[in-house]
């Protein structure tokens, strides 16, 4: 199969969506960030000029406008840019888009996609490295998508734009350049279907977004030590594929959750709680979390590295749960 970059896969999904449905629009077109891959969006801007709008720096307004445009029957894709800036638009995100369907008793649908780039990216410091997905998971009513590969991002983005619900689509800045197998034709990946990125019998490592790539690296290292890690990527937090998670832990009996959100009330914490509550009998060791500690992200590389869920930290955690008796 042909290999293309993660960024190119995003552009394919956007292009197909814009061509397929005249009610799809883009509010903000720097979806790929401001790095060299941004030029991949140029043909789209030219082809769909009447439905692509670059807004002023007004995160609250574009989140709200996306919600309103969706309520009016269109399918806007709103690019918030760096995920830390989504906090500026928090009220329309969690107070309007997330609640409108329930609050109206199902009368109103809000088929908007909010796109953002999260995560530790190398020198982002405290205000450009945010990973708001756990906070958003805490706000009921939003679908949350965290792709980790070029193949997944294309299929998941097609599903996000077709979804009738407000969907937060969170990419990682470090994923943009990754290359992988991507079918040329159109396809969707349904939400709520986790994917086992590498099967293994000894320990389940659940990871999300870029940390899936890190976990795969860790799994290579551990395999050389004779530890077979199963890397499971939920792909969507809402809806969550709880069944596959519990099945995997049922096979391995050990769980490490690796994720970039902060430790307290983070994704690793919630997934650990779910397994502790529903899969306790399967567990042969305590669950370990490899997350970002509750420290604002520092700029200097050794400091940033110290809070990053690295392959080394994942390996250490896996060795500990394997050694636990």
């Amino acid at each position, binding site marked *: 199969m042909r290999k293309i970059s993660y960024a190119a896969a995003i552009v394919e999904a956007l292009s197909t969506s814009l061509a397929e449905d005249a009610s799809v629009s883009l509010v903000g077109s720097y979806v790929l960030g401001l790095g060299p891959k941004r030029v991949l969006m140029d043909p789209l801007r030219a082809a769909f000029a009447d439905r692509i709008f670059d807004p002023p720096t007004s995160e609250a307004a574009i989140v709200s406008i996306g919600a309103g445009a969706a309520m009016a029957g269109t399918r806007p894709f709103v690019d918030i840019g760096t995920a830390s800036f989504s906090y500026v638009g928090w009220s329309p995100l969690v107070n309007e888009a997330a609640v409108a369907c329930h609050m109206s008793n199902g009368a*109103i649908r809000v088929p908007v996609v909010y796109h953002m780039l999260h995560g530790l990216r190398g020198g982002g410091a405290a205000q450009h490295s945010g990973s708001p997905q756990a906070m958003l998971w805490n706000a009921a009513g939003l679908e949350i998508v965290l792709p980790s590969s070029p193949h997944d991002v294309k299929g998941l983005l097609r599903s996000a734009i077709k979804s*009738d619900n407000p969907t937060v689509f969170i990419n990682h800045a470090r994923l943009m350049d990754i290359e992988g197998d991507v079918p040329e034709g159109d396809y969707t990946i349904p939400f709520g279907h986790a994917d086992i990125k590498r099967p293994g019998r000894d320990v389940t490592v659940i990871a999300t977004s870029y940390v899936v790539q890190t976990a795969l690296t860790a799994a290579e290292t551990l395999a050389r030590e004779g530890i077979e890690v199963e890397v499971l990527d939920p792909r969507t937090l809402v809806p969550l594929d709880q069944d596959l998670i519990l099945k995997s832990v049922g096979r391995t009996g050990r769980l490490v959750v690796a994720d970039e959100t902060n430790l307290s009330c983070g994704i690793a914490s919630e997934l650990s709680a779910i397994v502790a509550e529903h899969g306790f009998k399967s567990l042969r060791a305590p669950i370990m979390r490899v997350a970002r500690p509750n420290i604002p992200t520092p700029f200097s590389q050794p400091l940033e590295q110290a809070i990053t869920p690295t392959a080394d930290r994942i390996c250490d955690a896996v060795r500990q749960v394997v050694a636990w008796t």
Partner: protein
Amino acid sequence: MPTLDRRTSLSIFQRMLMIRHFEEAVIALYKQGRFASHYHLYIGQEATGSAVLETLSEKDLICTTHRNHGHIIGRGCDPNRAMAEILGRASGFNGGRSGTLHICDHSHGFLSTSAVVGGCAGLATGAGFGLKVRREPHVAVGFFGDGALEEGLVSESFNIAALWKLPVVYVCENNSAGAMGPQQGGYPTAITATDSFVRLPAAYGIHCLKVDGTDIAAVYAAASAAGQRCRGGDGPVFIEAFTTRWPGSSPLWPELATVTDLNDAWDPARISGPHADWSRHHDPVLRVARELVAGGHASRDELMARDNEARMRIAAAANFAIDSPMPAPASVGDHVFA
């Protein structure tokens, strides 16, 4: 001075009567302990909402706020289901999930009803964006109070609506005159540093109109002109409509309720009680009733008959709501997602 024909002015007045009786019934139901929570009334602003709504078509989109009862009833939505919603009943427009704060009848073009101050302006701007993307010749109307202008989201929305020439009519119902706190000329001086709210949207080049919000002809003319401008692709319009705060609305839980009697319109000498000054000088319902008779559009008896009919319709809505069942607790998780 703009004038209105008989049919239009009576249609607006009909909306106003329905709103007034609905609101007075809400007060009565609250006093009977029929629902919890604070609530916000539209009394005193009926002329503004009714005249704006009179100019809209079925396909136009509307966004309202925590003070939504007037816009919902004025639009012609079913008062039974609106009242049932306020009482948290399963038969309410939103199955009891919204209550008084978020009543929404999507089938009449309402977007989600936001009780976050200023939230409505962003949603209405988004609806205008949606209309532009789909090239539909309709308008999105956002109703909000003057307090919304304190929010940054609203100024951001003005900027984007102006940049992209979105078909949005912002209706700012300035009800600060007579409200609590220090004021100058209808502007709460402790809250806003401007002495004219239209300066804000005007800074973005938005076409602005100021009207007396109790003058149905003036509001109708402004809203018609705004709608025409939007439909013509000339971008957003901001209307500031001035009304004087009904004294009963001062606390969050409206007190000192009076029941409107149309006879007061032609016999101001009989007006008494704590709201006498407001009723004589600022009550839009009494004002329009007086003008309809003076202008020869209707007789007193005709208006009294309409008033009685509206009162009975709302009484039926209250009974419908009271008799409706509460939602089943097991249904609480329904509709989180479409």
